[in-house]
């Protein structure tokens, strides 16, 4: 078998509830800023949860002309914007690369939920005439985002969307990583986007009792590993990465942010929405990723956890970390940046991968904010980086994401060395 190729990150773009560029995103991550606020995208008065982590100061006309904007669901608009930022950041010249070996693999847990909702409402209010807008299907389908990105840049390599709920973004990155290291492509635009802050999204997750209902204090509602956590806060946004085969990046003198050294996948095979109580799938996925990276577990410095702020999920992930790392668990920095961004579902893996890469760049661990009191169920010796960012040497960072359906994914970034 041929030797696997090395894969590096050469561009980052982000559009998040706490910053509309990757630079603003990192600044607010390191400062511990919350992105939660009352919902503005629809009248949420009758809903159990009336707040979310929305993207702020967003006007599609700053990025697209009116006709273009109207044909894209918000999740696709977000995908285009972060791809453009990542492409510009990477300095890739599409005239000089082989576009047949350039692909786009994108993650979205749901796709165009708002478009689906609005069209069905139109249908029922329209006397049930079987007329649907011709853009309904192409706006709604989750694979349209990478399709439109490929049209913009002329990338003719592999192109699809990964759908694994809240693990989707990480699955997209792992798939891109695999094609690159197998030598089947030179470069990928990858990442994920989600825009589910609409009646169907909030109402649907409320019905699952998955969302925090702390309406009197939205900015403190996302509190992973806190004694009083009561569910996740729905977020929206996107992040895009340029992943590139190392020799390809080197040949064009690209700036290299970090190396992607491993990816793991597993399934809980347990329950539709609940995590395995002892974190079996979470444990296996971290072991798979560490083995894939060919490192020793003691080399890991930082874990950006899935940590959504639900009572069960946080607990099983913490148990899994102790199981996997043993004594080294106490040397790790652990943090859930969802405490600031909320939970971006299929985009979570993308924005959290970006957080890990930027943490390595800045040698700083972003915090888990909103910690008010310890939950005795967690081992007090674990360092969850509560409330304030911590400077430390970060050579290796792990990002975990887990999705409804029992999908688990984990990826590992390393500080780049020749």
């Amino acid at each position, binding site marked *: 078998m041929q030797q696997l190729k090395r894969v590096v990150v050469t561009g980052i773009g982000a559009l998040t509830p706490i910053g509309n560029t990757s630079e603003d995103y990192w600044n607010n991550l390191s400062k511990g800023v919350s992105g939660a606020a009352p919902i503005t995208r629809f009248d949420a008065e009758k809903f159990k949860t009336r707040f979310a982590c929305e993207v702020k100061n967003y006007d599609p006309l700053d990025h697209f002309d*009116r*006709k273009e904007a109207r044909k894209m669901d918000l999740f696709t608009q977000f995908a285009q914007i972060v791809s453009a930022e990542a492409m510009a950041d990477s300095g890739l010249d599409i005239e000089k690369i082989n576009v047949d070996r350039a692909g786009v693999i994108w993650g979205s847990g749901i796709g165009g939920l708002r478009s689906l909702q609005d069209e069905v409402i139109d249908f029922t209010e329209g006397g049930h*005439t079987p007329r649907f807008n*011709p853009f309904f299907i192409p706006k709604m389908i989750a694979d349209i985002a990478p399709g439109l990105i490929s049209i913009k840049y002329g990338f003719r390599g592999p192109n699809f969307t990964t759908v694994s709920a809240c693990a989707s973004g990480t699955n997209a990155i792992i798939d891109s990583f695999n094609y690159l290291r197998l030598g089947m492509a030179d470069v990928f635009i990858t990442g994920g986007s989600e825009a589910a802050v609409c009646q169907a999204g909030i109402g649907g997750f409320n019905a699952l009792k998955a969302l925090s209902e702390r309406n009197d204090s939205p900015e403190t509602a996302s509190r992973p590993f806190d004694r009083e956590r009561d569910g996740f806060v729905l977020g929206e946004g996107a992040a895009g990465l340029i992943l590139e085969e190392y020799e390809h990046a080197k040949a064009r003198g690209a700036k290299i942010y970090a190396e992607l050294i491993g990816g793991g996948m597993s399934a809980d095979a347990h329950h539709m929405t609940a995590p395995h109580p002892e974190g079996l799938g979470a444990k296996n996925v971290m072991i798979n990723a560490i083995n894939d990276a060919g490192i020793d577990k003691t080399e890991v410095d930082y874990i950006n956890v899935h940590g959504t702020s639900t009572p069960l999920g946080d607990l099983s992930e913490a148990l899994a970390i102790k199981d996997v790392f043993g004594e080294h668990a106490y040397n790790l920095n652990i943090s859930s940046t969802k405490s600031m961004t909320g939970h971006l579902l299929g985009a979570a893996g993308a924005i959290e991968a970006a957080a890990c890469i930027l943490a390595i760049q800045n040698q700083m661990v972003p915090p888990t904010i909103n910690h008010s009191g310890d939950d005795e169920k967690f081992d007090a010796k674990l360092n969850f980086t509560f409330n304030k960012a911590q400077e430390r040497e970060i050579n290796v960072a792990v990002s975990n994401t887990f999705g409804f359906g029992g999908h688990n994914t984990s990826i590992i970034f390393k500080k780049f060395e020749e």
Partner: protein
Amino acid sequence: MSDIAQKVKSIIIDKLGVEESEVSAEASFTNDLGADSLDTVELIMEFEKEFNISIPDDQAENIGTVGQAISYLEENAK
């Protein structure tokens, strides 16, 4: 200009993202106003919604310019 003509023009301006000055009677949706086949279907749908009528597909095929849309709707809208 009739009420109908005014409404038709504003739908076209909105959906195709064009300037009012471009929307002449002779202007073809596809050749002059940058519409693709999906845009054209959407325009017909918007006319149906605005004027509360149903335009059969075989008749929709004959509506290719601004003027054709206006005269069809002036004849058929209630």
